[in-house]
C-alpha cells in the first residue's frame, strides 16, 4: 500500500492549478452562451490523473515512480477534455486557450485536419501553466503541464469505442473491426462536416 501520493507535496496544489485553467474555460463558455445563445462546448471534463494510473504510466514508460517523473517527464497529471457539437467550436476553444494569460502552448497536434491512420480525430494541446504556487523545481511562480483534448461529440464517441477495442485482448477479427472503425470514423467526419456546412448556411 502506498502511503504517500506520487505527486508528493504537490498533490494539494494540482487541483488549484487545474482550477485556474478550467475557471477560464468555463467563463469563456458562459460569455459565448450569453452573446450567441449557444454554448461553445457541450461537455467539459477534467481530472487529476489518479495516483495508481500515474504510477502505472511511469512503469510503462520505464520511468521511476517519482514526483519528478510524474510532473516533469510526463505531461498529463492535469488532463482536460472539451467536447463540442461542431468542428468550428473545437477551433474556437483552442483559439481561446492560446489567449489565456500565464498559459503557454508547448505543442499542438491537429488530428482533425490530419487524422491518424486508424481514423482518430481530435485536437491536442500541451500547455505550460505559470501559477502563483511552488512547483516541483521549488520555484514560485511555478510551472505545471496540462494536456487538453478537444473534439466533437461524434469524434468523442468514436474514440471511446476505439479505446474499448484497444484494451480488449480477446477480440476476434481484429482486422475487420479495425477496418470498420476506420470506415465509421470517415463517415462520422463526413457528418460533422455536413452539420458544420448546414450551420454555416443557416447563420449566413
Amino acid at each position, binding site marked *: 500500500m502506498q502511503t504517500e501520493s506520487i505527486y508528493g507535496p504537490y498533490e494539494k496544489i494540482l487541483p488549484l492549478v487545474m482550477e485556474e485553467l478550467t475557471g477560464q474555460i468555463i467563463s469563456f463558455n458562459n460569455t459565448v452562451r450569453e452573446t450567441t445563445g449557444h454554448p461553445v462546448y457541450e461537455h467539459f471534463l477534467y481530472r487529476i490523473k489518479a495516483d495508481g494510473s500515474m504510477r502505472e504510466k511511469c512503469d510503462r514508460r520505464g520511468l521511476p515512480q517519482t514526483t519528478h517523473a510524474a510532473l516533469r517527464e510526463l505531461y498529463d497529471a492535469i488532463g482536460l477534455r472539451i467536447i463540442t457539437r461542431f468542428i468550428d467550436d473545437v477551433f474556437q476553444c483552442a483559439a481561446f486557450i492560446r489567449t489565456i494569460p500565464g498559459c503557454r502552448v508547448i505543442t499542438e497536434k491537429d488530428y482533425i*485536419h*490530419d*487524422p491518424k491512420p486508424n481514423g482518430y480525430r481530435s485536437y491536442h494541446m500541451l500547455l505550460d501553466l505559470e501559477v502563483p504556487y511552488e512547483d516541483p523545481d521549488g520555484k514560485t511562480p511555478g510551472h505545471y503541464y496540462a494536456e487538453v483534448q478537444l473534439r466533437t461529440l461524434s469524434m468523442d464517441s468514436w474514440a471511446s469505442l476505439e479505446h474499448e477495442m484497444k484494451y480488449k485482448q480477446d477480440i476476434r477479427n481484429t482486422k475487420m473491426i479495425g477496418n470498420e472503425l476506420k*470506415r465509421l470514423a*470517415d*463517415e462520422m*467526419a*463526413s457528418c460533422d*462536416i*455536413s452539420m*458544420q*456546412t*448546414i450551420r*454555416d*448556411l443557416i447563420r449566413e
Partner: protein
Amino acid sequence: MELSRALCAVLNHQGYETDAVYDGLAAVEKAAEKTYDCMIFDIMMPVMDGLTAVREIRGQGNVTPVIMLTAKTEIDDRVDGLDAGADDYLTKPFAMKELLARIRSMTRRKTSFTPARLTLAGVTLDLDSQELSAVHSIRLSGREMQLMELFMQSKGRDLTTEEVFERIWKEEPDEDLEIVWLYVSYLRKKLGAIKAKISITGEKGGSFRLA
C-alpha cells in the same frame, strides 16, 4: 447522314433527346462538352473515323456507353470497335427495334459500364465503398457520391445548377433547386478535408466546375 437523320427522328419520337454530328472530330468535341447517357457511332465517318473517335473519348476518361454501327459483317470490325472502347455494336443493316432495345439495355445497366473507381488529380472516388480519398479519406452519402461522380465524369466542364438538379434529383421533382448548392457546399468542404488539390468552383445558383 440520312441514317443519322432517321435515327434521330425515331429516338426523338421515343422520348430521347439527341445531338447529331457528322464527323468523328465533332463527336469528340461534343462528348467533351456535354454528358450523355449513350452515344451511337458509325465506323465510317469523315475527318476522324468512329474507332479513333471512341478511342479518343475513352482516353479522356469518358465512360459513357457507346454503340458502334459497323457496315460490314467482318468480325475484325466488331473486334476493333469493342477494343476501341465501344460497349456494343450493331451491323448494318439493322432493325430499329433492335437498336432501341440495345439502347434501353445499355442505359438501364449504366452503372455497370462505369468503373468501380474514378480518379482525377490524385482524388479517388470508390463507388462501391462510397469513399472519397486524396491525402486523407472520408465517406460520402449516396447523393453526395452521385454528385461527385457527375463532377468527375464532367471534369473541366461547367455544369449548370439546373443540369445538376436534372441529373441527380430527377426522381424527386418536388425537391428545391437550392439543394444543389447545399450538396456542392458539402463536397467542397469534404474535398478540403481530404486535402484534395482540386475543388468545385462556382457560385450559388450558377454553374459549377471541378478543377
